[in-house]
């Protein structure tokens, strides 16, 4: 595959670029990528090339000088790479993120698949809440036998309980 810029040398740097919400693949050779500053982090915001102009600006507005405590990633790193450091970064840089996601997707809320584990955890939490409501009612109604039974079941469901 040849370089998109000079159309002569073999491309060694492969980029995905979003322009006006359209994704484009950009393939550059060694010398053209250097010329465009792709390999020179100081002179060039890869995030802008990758995610559309203005992406790194959005991020900058969101958080200043902050670093992800989990992976040490900063918004300057995002500007360089157009990628996040770890999943926790989505929390740390949430402010600028919203505007950026809005530009590239349909809204900013996931409506698709949820991992089984989380579904189970959610059901589990709901069940716990339901039992606690019932317990309060049993106590109010002075049904102590039922209350004791419910307490037992809650104990089993609470975090740290065996089999959960």
């Amino acid at each position: 595959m040849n370089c998109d810029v000079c159309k002569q040398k073999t491309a060694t740097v492969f980029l995905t670029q979003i322009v006006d919400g359209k994704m484009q693949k950009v393939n550059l050779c060694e010398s053209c990528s250097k010329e465009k500053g792709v390999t020179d982090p100081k002179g060039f915001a890869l995030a802008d090339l990758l995610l559309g102009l203005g992406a790194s600006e959005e991020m900058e507005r969101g958080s200043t000088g902050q670093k992800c405590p989990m992976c040490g990633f900063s918004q300057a790193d995002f500007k360089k790479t157009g990628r996040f450091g770890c999943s926790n970064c989505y929390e740390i840089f949430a402010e600028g993120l919203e505007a950026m996601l809005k530009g590239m997707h349909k809204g900013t809320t996931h409506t698709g698949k949820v991992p089984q584990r989380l579904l189970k955890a959610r059901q589990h939490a709901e069940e716990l809440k339901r039992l606690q409501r019932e317990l309060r009612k049993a106590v109010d109604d002075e049904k102590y036998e039922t209350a004791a039974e419910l307490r037992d079941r809650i104990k089993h469901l609470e975090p740290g309980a065996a089999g959960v």
Partner: protein
Amino acid sequence: MALHNILTESGEWLSGDGPHSNIVISSRVRLARNLRNFAFPGWAKKADRIAVLECVKPQVESLPEMADAYSAYSQDLSALEKQVLVERHLVSREHAAKGVGSAVVMNRKQTLSIMINEEDHLRIQGIRSGLQLRNVFKLVDKVDTALGEKLDFAFHQQYGFLTACPTNVGTGMRASAMMHLPGLVLSEQINQVIQAVSKVGLAVRGLYGEGTEALGNLFQISNQITLGEKEDEILTRLNKVIEQILQHEVNSRASLLEKKAVLLLDNIGRAFGILRHAHSMASKEALNLLSCLKLGVDLGFFPEDGRLLVDQLFMETQPAHLQKSSQQKLQAEERDTLRADIVRAKLAKFPKPDGKKAIERGREERKEKDEKDSGAAA
């Protein structure tokens, strides 16, 4: 299983027996997944990448879908082997550039491949012949669900599955179809189609070649949006658009047969002549000529039993496949000579194109249709 065992068999998607596989070469779906509490591969330190790899790889290998799998660390694959996998769409070009800390696991049918520590910790990819995005999705979805029980995937209440690049966040799903569209190219309608498709949030790009040039008339249509739409909605929309493009391609072929038969005869005839007699051929030229030959088979200019041969040549004339078959690394000039030799040998008994019958049949069909239409109107 050894890699060469897998590679001597051509993948399922190359066999060309899926729905509409004349025009829709393959359907592909990939899911991007990451583990919570570990930096993404591009930012992680080597030790962390290896830790993720050693945690993920056994889980992937123990999937029932991977019972007869090939599994390899990236550093154990030669550059040529990686390139062969890229040409078969089993690993991405980005993944082929990885070394220590990455791996790939694929099933024997070559319908499922899982890249570990590409841009994301996991890239689960399914690929099948023809238009069957939903079947491919079912496969990767099942695998994803199974892995999700064992691995703690990074999932956000609002943003969904978290990915290194925010363009993939949400479903983490990229679905695509590879289409062979010589009719739309020859009738100069392809740019309109590309423009129309990009307006509905999908992307079209040439599979090979750079810029607007699409070698071999092969195009890839894929979704761009991954957040704010359900997997099912994305697939439905993409499928609808692909079916429309498919219909446009069929129509443009019919209209070429009827109105521009000489253009077709000339293109297919020249392609046949050059492929049969050339002694040096660049990969670009081979792709374009083979595309004409494939169109010839589709239109009935060549017997149907020549189809598999032509489809196989598309792959066998790719640079890495060529070098693999010759067991050595070749210079560009040597490659071009070898490519022409292989094509000549394979097509030695290929019959001359015969467009007469196809063109007559096209005219008759058109006449029948017109009569029916005018009958309906009366």
